[in-house]
């Protein structure tokens, strides 16, 4: 199996799906000749032409809104939001429209579309090119939210997302684009939307993460292993619908839980996971449910010392693991 990075995995998924299904098109800022600011769609305009790889106007509400309309007219749009931070002007079209159309039409209309958004920090992106947006959208019934951490998952999940009859928000952590490499089979495969994946089985405590933090958690778990602590690392992968059974199953076995995300702690997605554990694994819990998240500041600053201070690090995660293990 060839080893590729996460960005290439995403490009391959789009390319292979477009080759098979004429209804698929890409719509976003600079996705055409420029190939996207991260080069995800590089080369695709040459293959599929400007009617299927379309440079949109600089307006996120109509990027999503037009894709909603197009999805209802028998096409399969893939919207690209240039940076997840810039999804904010499209909030109305995503939450009030895309996510509610199937329900409000009593199942008559469907909105099969994908919204790709590069998210997360640690790349000198400052307040507006580093944000985590999952908590906001994972709260929305009718929307699916996917946040893969490996090339294999990214490719398999993106294909599933494109085939899904529902709107799917597909979050690509910017820092993992070129940093994270992995083996990806040459044959056509899918990773289903929904199931979490135990990336590292363990016995003493359970850690839940996604995106870049998954890798930091694996790194920390490795360090803890050397200290004789066996950490189970669960990659949530899909945030909505959430794989509650795997989360609860893991904590029932290990009796301890830590949730890690980059987003601000308060009101972050970790709250939901912790609440589920506190309700459904209460009897088995041997320690407080811990969460690590970014600090409660409006977003991640530009200056390196501030960015570093914001980002949860493998060291900080390892420290929480130790606290839990010792509890």
């Amino acid at each position, binding site marked *: 199996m060839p080893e590729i990075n996460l960005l290439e995995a995403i490009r391959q998924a789009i390319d292979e799906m477009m080759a098979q299904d004429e209804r698929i098109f890409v719509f976003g800022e600079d996705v055409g000749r420029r190939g996207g600011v991260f080069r995800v769609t590089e080369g695709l305009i040459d293959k599929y032409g400007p009617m*299927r790889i379309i440079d949109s106007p600089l307006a996120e*509400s*109509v990027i999503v809104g*037009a894709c909603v309309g*197009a999805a209802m007219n028998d096409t399969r749009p893939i919207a690209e939001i240039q940076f997840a931070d810039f999804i904010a002007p499209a909030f109305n079209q995503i939450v009030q429209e895309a996510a509610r159309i199937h*329900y409000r039409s*009593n199942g*008559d209309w469907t909105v099969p579309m994908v919204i790709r958004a590069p998210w997360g920090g640690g790349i000198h992106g400052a307040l507006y090119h580093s944000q985590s947006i999952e908590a906001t959208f994972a709260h929305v*019934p009718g929307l699916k939210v996917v946040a893969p951490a490996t090339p294999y998952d990214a490719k398999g999940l993106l294909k599933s997302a494109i085939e899904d009859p529902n709107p799917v928000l597909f979050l690509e952590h910017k820092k993992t684009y070129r940093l994270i490499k992995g083996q990806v089979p040459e044959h056509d495969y899918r990773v289903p939307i929904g199931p979490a994946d135990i990336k590292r089985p363990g016995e003493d405590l359970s850690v839940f993460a996604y995106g870049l933090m998954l890798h930091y958690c694996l790194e920390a778990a490795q360090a803890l292993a050397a200290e004789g602590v066996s950490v189970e690392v669960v990659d949530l992968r899909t945030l909505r619908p959430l794989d509650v059974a795997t989360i609860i199953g893991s904590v029932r076995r290990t009796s301890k839980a830590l949730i890690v995300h980059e987003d601000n702690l308060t009101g972050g997605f970790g709250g939901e996971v912790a609440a589920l554990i506190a309700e459904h694994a209460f009897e088995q819990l041997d320690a407080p449910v811990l969460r690590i998240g970014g600090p409660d500041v409006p977003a991640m600053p530009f200056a390196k010392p501030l960015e570093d201070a914001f980002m949860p690090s493998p060291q900080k995660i390892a420290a929480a693991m130790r606290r839990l293990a010792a509890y």
Partner: protein
Amino acid sequence: MAVSITDHAPGTADAGAELPATTLREMFRCMVLARALDERMWLLNRAGKAPFVISCQGHEAAQVGAAFALTRGKDVTLPYYRGLATVLVMGMTPEEVMLALFARATDPNSGGRQMPAHYSSRRLKIITQSSPVGTQIPHAAGVGLAEKIKGGDAVVWTSFGEGTTSQGDFHEGINLAAVHRLPVIFQCENNEYAISVPQHQQMAVRSVADRGPAYGIPGISVDGTDVLAVYEVTRRAVERARRGDGPTLIEARVVRLTAHSSDDNDRTYRSPRELQSTRRSDPIARFAAYLHEHDLLSEAEERELRAQVAAEVDAATEAAERAPLPEPESLLNHVYAQS
């Protein structure tokens, strides 16, 4: 350049001359039916049988004129909440309208999930509407974009009020359609109010049609109480769209004959004199006069037509009232589509 069709374009008489009498009578019937249904809804509201009504009254000519220029079963519409007459022309039945009013399980618009007047029917290519105003404008552009990608020749038609033109989605949607010359018709039904806010507090132009040139597309202002004038400008816009020449922005100048909705009381912001004068622009009275004048409809025929319509409204109301409410458990259905 914004064009005021009533200034120097074919008016009622010319357009009417081209249409067969049966079509003209059918247009009139649709207008009368919309009005009769609408009035019935208010009665039901006052009787405590329907918690919410929002009206089409005064907009009938603008909607019927436009919808008659579209091809049923082929063209796609995204009508806003005043679009009762639009959806009737596109094929929705009075009973279906009443099922929505009573929020019945069998309401094809939403199964009783949405407020009345949030029209939808996949079968009729009426795209589901929400309450946040203006969101349908980007959708319309997107339906047109898909049509162009697929190489189809359906036309997309959407409507909204003049207040809604203040929303960013109005701008973004029309701009996209203009850039890609998409086959979309944007009909603004200008009744001079957004609930209580008059047009001059909404925009500093006299006509919404003045905004067409800002997008490089025609902006046409038409007397929206003149069904045939609206038909004519829409017909041309449809031709233009089907030819691949792109979108048109049409302002239909209409009157709002009721309060904003059953939750509103417009006497707090409209003077009795204004309310009075609005009544004089009733598009149905106007078309009736035209038809009589041109011997296309006799007084007796009109009476018979109105009686038929009343019976239809009675039957629709009764059938819809008998229909079952949604089961509580159905609350959880259709959150996600199954593949």
